[in-house]
């Protein structure tokens, strides 16, 4: 049996490029041309990942007492502005410019030379924008560790500096020919770059900021659990762009990224629900929403390297360390208020290690432990530890400096107890307007 279609395909691949080369040299450029299908998917993915930060705002906002709901949501929303603008100003160039081991350069600062020319098969400007949405959500993720007790100005200064000094260089290490890329560390969509990175920063920030005045004294319950579930759902939806889009193409790899993203959190939800049931006798909604995030985080580094069945295994395994760490954390003096380290730091690290275990050569081009390459696991561990250490130390230094020059990172204790919304934003999340007197400006 001869498959004529396949033969014709081979003939086209072998012969046609040669013909093109002979007949029209300038058409060789077309090999690197913009593909409309890929571009359409990446435009979509960019919007999907941008929506994740709004989803994160609802996820975080629902978890805090109502007196802090606006401040908590604003910490995510302001990242659209601060982290987004700085990505265009310098972050993109530090991340993707030049070929240094540790930092990019400023050759593309202010998007110099970033236009609609092809980068792979999509416009360069779109690649830059897609990556910018990652910079925004990574900064916003950290805020969960410091809700309810950080001056808003200090927070803005922190995410501005952190984005340039920590996030952009770490992107360069892993995704733009830096030292971890050179070692062969695998991180398809940001398990290490985004989640271990933000998790380590969150841990450092929670320690530097110290616990909220209320912490350990009275229960600070989620004020709106439906918000938490809404946020988790939006994050899952947007994550199809995060992982599916990290293929940078509308092809089989993009499909693998999207489908593994669909199944891994499902497995985490099942395992988490069982752990909840056997621990407390009930399956909790906040627990389930947390499980979705942990599963999404864990599959992120592996999403373009494993099969959907391995994704289910990764999601299931990832539930255990995060579940028990968060359980321990809530009874400790560590006020990582919304468990950014437990969900993103630990979930990201577990996912990155399991990427080294389950990677399938036929999917992502690299074999993992189960295909006889145990060294990949070690490489993954080195990448995790390198990012963890740099992010943690740099975060401590940045916060200490901001605190020293701005007269402290926290507001007065009595103001903090009344809630951050009034002092930071002059608004309330749920104002009734009763007794409010209009102030009319004098003519």
């Amino acid at each position, binding site marked *: 049996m001869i498959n004529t279609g396949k033969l014709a395909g081979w003939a086209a691949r072998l012969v046609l490029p040669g013909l093109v080369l002979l007949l029209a040299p300038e058409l060789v450029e077309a090999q690197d041309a913009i593909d409309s299908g890929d571009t359409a998917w990446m435009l979509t993915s960019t919007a999907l990942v941008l929506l994740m930060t709004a989803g994160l705002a609802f996820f975080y906002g629902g978890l805090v007492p109502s007196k802090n709901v606006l401040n908590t949501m604003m910490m995510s929303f302001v990242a659209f502005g601060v982290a987004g603008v700085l990505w265009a100003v310098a972050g993109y160039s530090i991340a993707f410019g030049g070929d240094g081991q540790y930092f990019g350069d400023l050759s593309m600062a202010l998007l110099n030379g970033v236009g609609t020319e092809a980068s792979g098969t999509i416009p360069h400007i779109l690649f830059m924008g897609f990556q910018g949405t990652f910079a925004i959500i990574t900064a916003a993720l950290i805020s969960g560790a410091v809700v309810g007790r950080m001056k808003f100005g200090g927070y803005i200064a922190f995410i501005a500096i952190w984005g340039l000094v920590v996030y952009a260089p770490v992107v360069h290490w892993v995704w733009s020919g830096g030292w971890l890329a050179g070692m062969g560390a695998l991180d398809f969509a940001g398990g290490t770059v985004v989640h271990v990175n933000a998790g380590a920063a969150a841990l450092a920030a929670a320690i530097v900021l110290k616990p909220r005045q209320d912490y350990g004294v009275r229960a600070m319950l989620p004020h709106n659990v439906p918000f938490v579930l809404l946020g988790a759902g939006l994050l899952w939806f947007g994550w199809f762009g995060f992982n599916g889009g990290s293929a940078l193409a509308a092809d089989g790899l993009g499909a693998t990224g999207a489908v593994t993203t669909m199944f891994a959190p499902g497995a985490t939800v099942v395992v988490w629900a069982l752990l909840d049931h056997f621990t407390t006798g009930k399956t909790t909604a906040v627990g389930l929403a947390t499980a979705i995030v942990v599963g999404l985080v864990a599959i992120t580094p592996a999403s373009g390297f494993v099969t959907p069945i391995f994704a289910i295994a990764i999601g299931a395994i990832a539930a255990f360390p995060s579940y028990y760490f968060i359980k321990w954390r809530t009874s400790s003096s560590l006020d990582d208020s919304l468990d950014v380290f437990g969900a993103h730091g630990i979930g990201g690290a577990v996912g990155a290690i399991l990427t080294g275990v389950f990677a399938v050569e036929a999917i992502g081009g690299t074999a993992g432990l189960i295909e006889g390459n145990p060294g990949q696991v070690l490489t993954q561990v080195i990448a995790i530890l390198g990012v963890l250490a740099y992010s943690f130390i740099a975060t401590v230094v940045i916060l200490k400096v901001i605190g020293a020059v701005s007269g402290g990172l926290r507001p007065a204790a009595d103001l903090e107890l009344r809630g951050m919304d*009034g002092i930071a934003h002059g608004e309330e999340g749920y104002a009734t307007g009763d007794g*409010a007197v209009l102030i009319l400006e004098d003519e």
Partner: protein
Amino acid sequence: MKLIKAIIRPEKLSDVLKALYQADVEGVTVNRVQGHGGETEGVETYRGTTVKMGLTDKIMLDIGVSDSFVEVTVNAILNSARTGGVGDGKVFVFPIESVYRIRTGEKDERAVTPITEETNQTAI
């Protein structure tokens, strides 16, 4: 018997409840209220609309106690609700004509005396 009515800051509710519990005062009704007590009025702005918030969120507690418990209860509230700033609230003490416990029909002093472990067991 007296009815003690206290208006306190919402953020002090946990402290006050804890102090009352430690003073063996176990019956309390909690209301979320808004009011004005001379504190500085906060200014809020919503897309160009600037308003002075004339009313502040407060918590109002109603506690019925026997005469021997009045001072204990008032002191527990004063000590636990105080921050030193304007707006800490007030404690009012009213005389009561009569009190009935619905479950048993007990009247007056007996009705505001906390149920003992023993009676609690039988109630369950």
